[in-house]
């Protein structure tokens, strides 16, 4: 069953465009999407998922599964970095371990979007409040990462290096992409509540265009991921294995939590994908500012070069099978 799901997933336009980008890099085609065009698409995608999530959150209200699910998601983004940290400390210093852990505790919005498209293609229902979980999982993971550095690093660092709470909170909450996602979520919520006619007017931009823009962005992500993949030898075997097995482990953990939360299979898949995915946007940017001691190759090549492609190509359908086994459809 997995293999048929994998094939179905691979034959969807976003994944095909991702491969087009990968092959373009591999064959040295001079296809490139010059800066700052990729930024346009990443800003657009964050704005659109935030807005749509806010609208649906307003529709569903904060009752029922919303609060428990979002809280569990936050807990997962605190727990997963801790687990990662202990696994990584066997081989890496505090700085590198903490930075990589934060990335895996956090999420990848594009992986989430791809999972949504996958569910839509399978006609499986999911709820808009999952976007709230998405938006709220980045900051805690960054905070845990910085705390691990703060308390884990040797005490003889020069005084000016001591991280201040202020800058920890600033990096975690006001990072551009976290801020845009949360802000758009709030705007979607407010608009749906007080100005429902405007939701329809946004629809052509945030809704209809989304799938095509996702394809365009994944074309670029394919080029970028292939570049990172080509540098993956620099990170060593331990980290390569980590970047495949850790997501699977986190997915399993997420699946159990999703089951105990009583989520339907669509929401459960999204929950699992949030746990399994790793951040290559907000977290690396925050880590580079606050933990310059960590080697950025470690947390970028792994998340972007391996975990991201693995998740969107193979991971999502595999996690779907997992969810189907854990949560027999029709039971909820």
């Amino acid at each position: 069953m997995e293999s048929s799901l994998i094939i179905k997933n691979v034959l969807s336009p976003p994944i095909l465009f991702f491969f087009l980008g990968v092959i373009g890099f591999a064959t040295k085609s001079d296809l490139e999407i010059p800066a700052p065009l990729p930024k346009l698409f990443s800003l657009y995608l964050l704005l659109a998922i935030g807005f749509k999530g806010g609208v649906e959150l307003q529709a569903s209200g904060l009752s029922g599964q919303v609060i428990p699910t979002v809280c569990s998601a936050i807990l997962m983004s605190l727990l997963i970095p801790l687990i990662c940290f202990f696994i990584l400390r066997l081989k890496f210093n505090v700085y590198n371990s903490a930075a990589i852990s934060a990335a895996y505790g956090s999420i990848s919005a594009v992986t989430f979007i791809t999972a949504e498209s996958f569910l839509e293609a399978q006609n499986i229902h999911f709820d808009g409040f999952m976007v709230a979980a998405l938006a709220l999982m980045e900051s805690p993971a960054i905070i845990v990462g910085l705390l691990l550095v703060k308390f884990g690093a040797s005490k003889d660092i020069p005084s000016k290096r001591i991280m201040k709470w202020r800058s920890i909170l600033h990096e975690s909450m006001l990072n551009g992409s976290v801020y845009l996602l949360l802000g758009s979520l709030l705007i979607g919520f407010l608009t749906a509540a007080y100005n429902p006619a405007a939701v329809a007017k946004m629809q052509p931009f945030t809704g209809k265009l989304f799938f095509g823009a996702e394809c365009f962005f994944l074309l670029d992500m394919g080029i970028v991921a292939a570049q990172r993949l080509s540098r993956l030898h620099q990170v060593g075997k331990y980290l390569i294995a980590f970047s495949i097995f850790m997501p699977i482990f986190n997915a399993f953990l997420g699946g159990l939590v999703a089951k105990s939360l009583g989520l339907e299979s669509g929401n459960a898949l999204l929950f699992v994908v949030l746990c399994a995915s790793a951040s290559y946007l907000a977290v690396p940017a925050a880590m580079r500012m606050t933990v310059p001691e960590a080697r950025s190759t470690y947390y970028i090549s792994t998340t972007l070069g391996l975990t991201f492609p693995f998740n969107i190509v193979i991971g999502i359908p595999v996690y779907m099978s997992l969810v189907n086994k854990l949560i027999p459809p029709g039971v909820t």
Partner: protein
Amino acid sequence: MKRLDLIFSDRELDAILEALEQAQVPGYTVMKHATGRGPERVVTEDMEFTGMGANAHVIIFCEQEMIDSIRDNIKSILSYYGGVAYVSEATPL
């Protein structure tokens, strides 16, 4: 007159410009979207969308005294985050 070239990650741009303003440099020019390679790390344009940005190249034309007065401040920022700084001769047209 001297010409000072600073190249560093553009995430540190605010810190550098603050240091320059404090020293009251007569002016500066910033070019963003520079990429490059230092002793250990490659900065590529395509990571700009991630918010990690590319490099910034800052040029300052000023007197030798000015250079001396900002040296320590700039060097400490660059030594922490990475980046290079070089001085050369320049005469007004």
